[in-house]
């Protein structure tokens, strides 16, 4: 077969072939960029939740929860969100690599850029409260989230270990009543208590109590602290008619300074 024949054959074959329209390629390019950006946004949202769960963690009472700081970190690391973050960084990498010029950049450069974007965008989203909102919404909407993913509920239900999380439903002169996460009422006498100066007990406030179970209704309190994270517990403000304040130490400090 001569070279001329090949050229002619090709021309013959493409006679009935039309080039794919330019818009198809442009659409594909935009889609790839859109998916890469979307994956980056989702990974940044995950980063915001990770940040929220790490910051609003029980660092102040970790010695009551675990035997060591390391054990506490392993116990409370937001594995699901870290996995989610990792998966979406990989997806972002995959799509970025498939953009027109994506192949020019090495794996390490793309990962580094993704990480920087995640840190910046994730921190911003955390600061405007997106991390908290996601955790809160998912806690309420997704079954098993509180049991399997954000396991702080589990930690503050370890009543036999002296960890009681709940909402104040009744305040008397020498005792308070707490409705725990499962909905049981506990009578707590005010003894052996080191309450932070900024914590004023109010009905509807979610709190963490470190102490000791006396019997099926009574709990001895050593420390009472405002609940950190777990904002879905606001829904448990059963006795309070007015809007319950979001509970964390920063809110308390702000309230006091006002």
């Amino acid at each position, binding site marked *: *077969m001569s070279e001329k024949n*090949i*050229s002619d054959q090709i*021309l013959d*074959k493409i006679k009935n072939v039309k*080039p*794919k*329209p330019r818009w198809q390629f442009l659409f594909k390019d935009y889609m790839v960029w859109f998916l890469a950006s979307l994956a980056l946004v989702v990974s940044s949202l995950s980063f915001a939740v990770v940040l929220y769960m790490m910051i609003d963690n029980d660092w102040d009472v970790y010695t009551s929860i675990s035997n060591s700081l390391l054990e506490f970190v392993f116990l409370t690391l937001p594995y699901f969100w870290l996995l989610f973050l990792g998966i979406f960084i990989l997806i972002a990498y995959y799509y970025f690599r498939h953009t027109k010029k994506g192949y020019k950049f090495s794996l390490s450069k793309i990962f580094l850029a993704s990480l920087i974007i995640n840190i910046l965008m994730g921190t911003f989203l955390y600061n405007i409260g997106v991390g908290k909102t996601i955790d809160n919404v998912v806690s309420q909407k997704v079954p098993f989230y509180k049991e399997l993913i954000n396991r702080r509920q589990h930690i503050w239900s370890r009543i036999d270990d002296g960890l009681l999380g709940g909402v104040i439903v009744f305040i008397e002169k020498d005792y308070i009543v707490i409705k725990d996460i499962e909905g049981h009422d506990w009578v707590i006498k005010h003894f052996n208590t080191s309450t932070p100066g900024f914590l004023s007990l109010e009905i509807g406030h979610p709190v963490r109590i470190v102490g000791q179970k006396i019997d099926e209704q009574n709990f001895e309190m050593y420390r009472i602290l405002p609940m950190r994270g777990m904002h879905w517990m606001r829904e448990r403000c059963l006795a309070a008619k007015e809007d319950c304040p979001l509970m964390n130490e920063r809110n308390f400090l702000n309230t006091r300074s006002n």
Partner: protein
Amino acid sequence: MSDIVNKDNLNDEDLVKLTIEDQENFLYLIKRYEAKLGRYVRRIAGLGKEDTEDLLQDIFIKTYQNINSFDKDLKFSSWIYRIAHNEVIDNYRKKQSRPQGASFDVENLLNNLASEFNITKDLDHKYLQANISQVLNVMDLKYREVLILKFLEEKEYKEISDILKKPMGTVATLISRAKQQFLQKMKEQDIKL
């Protein structure tokens, strides 16, 4: 006739524009790349004449079908070599067989590899023709291809990066590993340079 002469003097990118307007102009690009790509495909795929021509036709048809996606930031030659590379890989996967029997232009190869491998140029060419081709044929496709692109097609690192769609650093690593494998295979087959 004068029209043909004029178009022959146009650069690739202008011919792409003209091809989009009129299919007939694609002939100039075919003529320009037919021999180069034929050689390249033969070298990396190690196919027989007919299979090479079939593959070449597929490459040009695909090039024409995708002509609207040509990125003007690239050299046209890098783009069409990229299509050829992809077609060879597809063909390789479909047939699931190792390419065999490709012969290489040892004269050219020797000139380009001489400084890289300290090759003594006065060795028997027939000996080298047989043995170097044999070594290249048993090399991994990815290593053989970068050696061919670098030392036979004489492409720059950036062009190889554009053809293989790999970062420049990865191309450098591939070439370095390809050289190592080339020397190792030479050693295994007891071929002296």
